[in-house]
C-alpha cells in the first residue's frame, strides 16, 4: 500500500490557502491564518484520492520563488532539490491566489521548469465575481500545458477535482518545462551548464549554481564543474534578474489571452480600511484599544466560568473523600490529583478568550498592518517589523512564536527576536498572574468601567513587552553579528474571519495547553503528594511531638489537628527540600511552600498553582474542603498576617514575569539556534533578572 502512495507537495506563494487545502485533503487541522508566513515547517498527512489510491500530502511554507531569502522559504528549495527517491515529490500541487495570478505564476513557471509533474490549483474562486475576474480555463490549461483546477479551499469546493487531477497527472507523468530559460538569456552559457549532467533538468542545475544547494546524489566531479559556474557572481545575479523578467513576459502573454479583470465590477474595502488602520494617529490608537479590550475581557468574561470550575473541583475532591474507601489512594486522588488538575482546568476560560482574540486578529489580516506600523520602531531595537508576530503570538505560547521567527531573513534580527520572545507574557503565566492578582489587588472598577484587576494584568503584559524591547536593545548594541536587514512584506486583503478556522484554532491550542500542562501536573502532583506525605524519622514523630508539647495542651481539637498537619508537612521530604532553599528566597518574601512551587515551576510555569493546591490540600485538615483561592487567601505568615500580602504578591508577579521557567522553550531555542549557548544565556540572564527585580520590589514594598 505505502509503496503506491503518491507523494504530493503543496507549494505556492504565502497566504494563498495551501494549509486550508491541506486540511481539506487530509482532514487534519493545521493552523491557517490571513498573513504571510503562518506555516514555517513541513507537515505531512494522508489523503484518500480515490477508492484505491492514497496520497501523502506535504504542506510547506509559502514562498514567492524557489530562491529563498529566509529559513522557512529554504525548506521549499530543499524539498525540491532532494533527489532522495523516498522523499522527492511525485506530483507538485501549486496553489495560487486567483486575485494575484500573475505573481503566483512566477513560482509556478519555476516549478514547471524542474520537470516534475505539476497540478495548478487556483484558489479563492469564491472571490472571483467580487473582484470582477473571469478566466478561460481550457485555454489556460493548454497554454500552461498542465492540469488546472479552480477551487475554494475555504468553501470546500473543487477538492474532488484536485484529487482527480493529481491522479491523472501522476499517471500521465508528463513534465515539460514552461519557459526554457536558456534561449533568451545566453544559449551558450546554459548549454554548457546542461552538459554537466544528464540526470538533472537544466533548471535544477541552475538552482544548484545560484543557491549553492546540492542534492545528495550529486557526484564530486559534477559538483566541481558546477562550482566553476559560480566564479562570476555578478553574471549570476544579472542572469537571475533577466530570468525573472523573461518569466514575467511569458506569463503576461498567457494571461492576456486567458485572464480578464473588469475593474469597474471590483469592490474594494481594502483601501478604506487601510486608511484607518494604518493612519498616523488612529493606527496606533486602534492597536492600543484592541489590546485594552483583550485584557479587560480576559478578566471580565472569564470570572463566572472560573468560579464555577473552582467550586466544582473543590466539591469533587470532597466527594472523593467522603465516598471512596479511606486510604492512600483516596488521599492521593483527593489531595493530589484533583486539586492539581483543577489548577489547570480553571484557566481554560481565560486562555480560550486570549486565544480567541489572537485567532481573530490573525484571520482578519490585521497582523500585517501591525507589522507595517511597527517596523521602524522595532528596527531601532535591533529587530524587524516581522518580530511583532512572534511577540504577539508569544502571548499564547513562546514555542510557536519562536518558530515564527523563521520568516525573518536577517540572522541578527531573528536571533534577537528569539532571545527576547520569552519575555512576552505567555498563557502559562496567566494562571499565576490571575490567582495572585485576585489575592492582592482589590476587585474594583475605576472610572466606572475599567476593572482594576484587568488593568494590573494589562500592565504585566506591558511589562513583558517593555522588557523584551529593552533586552533587544541591549542585545542589539552588544551582539557583534553582521547581517543585512531586509524587509518586504505583503499586505493581505482583509477577510472576515472564518468561524471554523477560529474555533479550531482556539480548540487546538487550548487542548494543547491543557494536555501539555495536565500531563506534567498529574505526574508532579503524584510525586509531590508522595514527598509531602512521607518523610524521615522526624516526620513520624511529629504528631507525637505536637501532642506532647505542653504549650498545645489547652488547644481545641480542630486547631490541634491543624498543628499536627503543618508539623507533618514541615518534616516531610518536600518540607525538608523547601526549608533548605528558604534562605535563598526569603529576601524575596517567599516561604518554603512557595519555594517548592518555584522549583516545580522550572519545568513549566503553570504548575505553580497546582503545586500550591497540592501542598495546601495535604496540610488542610480533612473536614472542610475549600477552593484553591480560599486556601491561598487563608495562609498566614510568621507574624500572623496574610502570607499572600501586597509585597509578596508583587514580588511573585515580577519573578514570574522575568524568570525563564520553561524547559520546552529552551529546547526549541536550542533547535532553532543550533547551540546550547543561547538557551543557557536565556536561562541565567532571565532568571537572574527575575531574582534581582523581585528582591528590590519586595524590599521596597515591605
Amino acid at each position, binding site marked *: 500500500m505505502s509503496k503506491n502512495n503518491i507523494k504530493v507537495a503543496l507549494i505556492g506563494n504565502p497566504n494563498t490557502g495551501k494549509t486550508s487545502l491541506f486540511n481539506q485533503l487530509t482532514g487534519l487541522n493545521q493552523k491557517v491564518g490571513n498573513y504571510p508566513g503562518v506555516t514555517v515547517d513541513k507537515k505531512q498527512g494522508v489523503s484518500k484520492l480515490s477508492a484505491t489510491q492514497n496520497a501523502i500530502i506535504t504542506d510547506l511554507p509559502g514562498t514567492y520563488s524557489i530562491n529563498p531569502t529566509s529559513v522557512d522559504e529554504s525548506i521549499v528549495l530543499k524539498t525540491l532539490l532532494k533527489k532522495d527517491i523516498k522523499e522527492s515529490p511525485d506530483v507538485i500541487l501549486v496553489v495560487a491566489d486567483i486575485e494575484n495570478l500573475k505573481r503566483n505564476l512566477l513560482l509556478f513557471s519555476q516549478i514547471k521548469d524542474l520537470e516534475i509533474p505539476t497540478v495548478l490549483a487556483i484558489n479563492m474562486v469564491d472571490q472571483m465575481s467580487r473582484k470582477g475576474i473571469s478566466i478561460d480555463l481550457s485555454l489556460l490549461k493548454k497554454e500552461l500545458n498542465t492540469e488546472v483546477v479552480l477551487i475554494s479551499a475555504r468553501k470546500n469546493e473543487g477538492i474532488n477535482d484536485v484529487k482527480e487531477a493529481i491522479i491523472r497527472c501522476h499517471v500521465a507523468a508528463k513534465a515539460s518545462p514552461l519557459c526554457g530559460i536558456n534561449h533568451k538569456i545566453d544559449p551558450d552559457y546554459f548549454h554548457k551548464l546542461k552538459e554537466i549532467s544528464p540526470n538533472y533538468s537544466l533548471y535544477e542545475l541552475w538552482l544548484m549554481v545560484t543557491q549553492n544547494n546540492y542534492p545528495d546524489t550529486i557526484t564530486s566531479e559534477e559538483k566541481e564543474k558546477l562550482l566553476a559556474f559560480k566564479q562570476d557572481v555578478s553574471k549570476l545575479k544579472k542572469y537571475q534578474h533577466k530570468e525573472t523578467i523573461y518569466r514575467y513576459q511569458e506569463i503576461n502573454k498567457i494571461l492576456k489571452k486567458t485572464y480578464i479583470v473588469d475593474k469597474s465590477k471590483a469592490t474594494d474595502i481594502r483601501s478604506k480600511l*487601510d486608511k484607518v488602520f*494604518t493612519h498616523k494617529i488612529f493606527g496606533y490608537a486602534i492597536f492600543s484599544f484592541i489590546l485594552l479590550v483583550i485584557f479587560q475581557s480576559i478578566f471580565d468574561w472569564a470570572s463566572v466560568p472560573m468560579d464555577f470550575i473552582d467550586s466544582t473541583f473543590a466539591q469533587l475532591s470532597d466527594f472523593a473523600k467522603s465516598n471512596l474507601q479511606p486510604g492512600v489512594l483516596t488521599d492521593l486522588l483527593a489531595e493530589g490529583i484533583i486539586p492539581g488538575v483543577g489548577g489547570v482546568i480553571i484557566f481554560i476560560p481565560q486562555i480560550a478568550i486570549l486565544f480567541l482574540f489572537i485567532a481573530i486578529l490573525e484571520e482578519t489580516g490585521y497582523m500585517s498592518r501591525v507589522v507595517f506600523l511597527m517596523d521602524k520602531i522595532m528596527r531601532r531595537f535591533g529587530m524587524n517589523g516581522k518580530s511583532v508576530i512572534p511577540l504577539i503570538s508569544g502571548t499564547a505560547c513562546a514555542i510557536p512564536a519562536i518558530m515564527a521567527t523563521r520568516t525573518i531573513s536577517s540572522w541578527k534580527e531573528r536571533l534577537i527576536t528569539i532571545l527576547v520572545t520569552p519575555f512576552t507574557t505567555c498563557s502559562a503565566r496567566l494562571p499565576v498572574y490571575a490567582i495572585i492578582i485576585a489575592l492582592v489587588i482589590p476587585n474594583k472598577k475605576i472610572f466606572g468601567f475599567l476593572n482594576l484587576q484587568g488593568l494590573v494584568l494589562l500592565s504585566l503584559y506591558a511589562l513583558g513587552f517593555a522588557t523584551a524591547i529593552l533586552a533587544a536593545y541591549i542585545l542589539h548594541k552588544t551582539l557583534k553579528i553582521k547581517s543585512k536587514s531586509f524587509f518586504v512584506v*505583503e499586505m493581505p486583503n482583509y477577510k472576515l474571519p472564518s468561524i471554523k478556522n477560529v474555533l479550531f484554532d482556539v480548540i487546538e491550542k487550548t487542548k494543547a495547553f491543557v494536555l501539555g500542562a495536565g500531563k506534567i501536573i498529574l505526574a508532579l502532583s503524584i510525586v509531590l503528594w508522595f514527598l509531602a506525605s512521607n518523610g524521615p524519622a522526624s516526620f513520624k514523630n511529629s504528631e507525637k511531638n505536637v501532642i506532647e508539647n505542653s504549650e498545645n495542651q489547652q488547644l481545641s481539637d480542630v486547631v490541634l489537628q491543624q498543628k499536627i498537619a503543618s508539623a507533618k508537612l514541615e518534616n516531610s521530604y518536600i518540607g525538608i527540600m523547601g526549608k533548605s532553599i528558604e534562605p535563598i528566597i526569603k529576601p524575596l518574601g517567599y516561604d518554603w511552600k512557595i519555594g517548592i512551587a518555584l522549583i516545580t515551576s522550572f519545568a513549566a510555569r503553570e504548575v505553580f498553582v497546582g503545586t500550591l493546591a497540592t501542598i495546601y490540600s495535604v496540610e488542610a485538615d480533612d473536614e472542610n474542603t475549600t477552593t484553591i483561592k480560599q486556601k491561598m487567601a487563608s495562609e498566614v505568615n510568621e507574624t500572623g498576617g496574610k502570607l499572600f500580602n501586597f509585597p509578596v504578591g508583587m514580588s511573585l508577579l515580577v519573578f514570574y514575569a522575568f524568570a525563564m521557567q520553561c524547559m520546552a522553550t529552551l529546547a526549541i531555542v536550542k533547535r532553532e539556534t543550533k547551540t546550547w549557548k543561547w538557551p543557557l544565556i536565556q536561562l541565567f540572564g532571565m532568571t537572574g533578572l527575575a531574582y534581582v527585580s523581585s528582591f528590590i520590589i519586595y524590599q521596597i514594598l515591605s
Partner: protein
Amino acid sequence: MNTIASLHIGEIGYISEESLDFIPLKLLEMGCLPGAEVQLIQIAPLKDPIYICVNGSHLAIRKETALQIKILKANL
C-alpha cells in the same frame, strides 16, 4: 530623478528600465518590474516603511529600498 520614495500618497509612477540592476531579486520576483505601475498607498507614521501597490501586489517596503528604485511619474 524620482524614486518610489518621492511619490505622494495616491500618486502613480512607472518603474524605469534603468533601475533593473538596483531592484533586489526578491522584489523583482514579487512583481516590481521595470515598466510596472506603482502606486503609493500609505506611509507609516514614522515616515518608514511605505506601503505600495505594484503589478497587483500590495507590499510594504522600507524607504532605503524605495530610494533605489527610479520611476517616471505619471502625468496627470
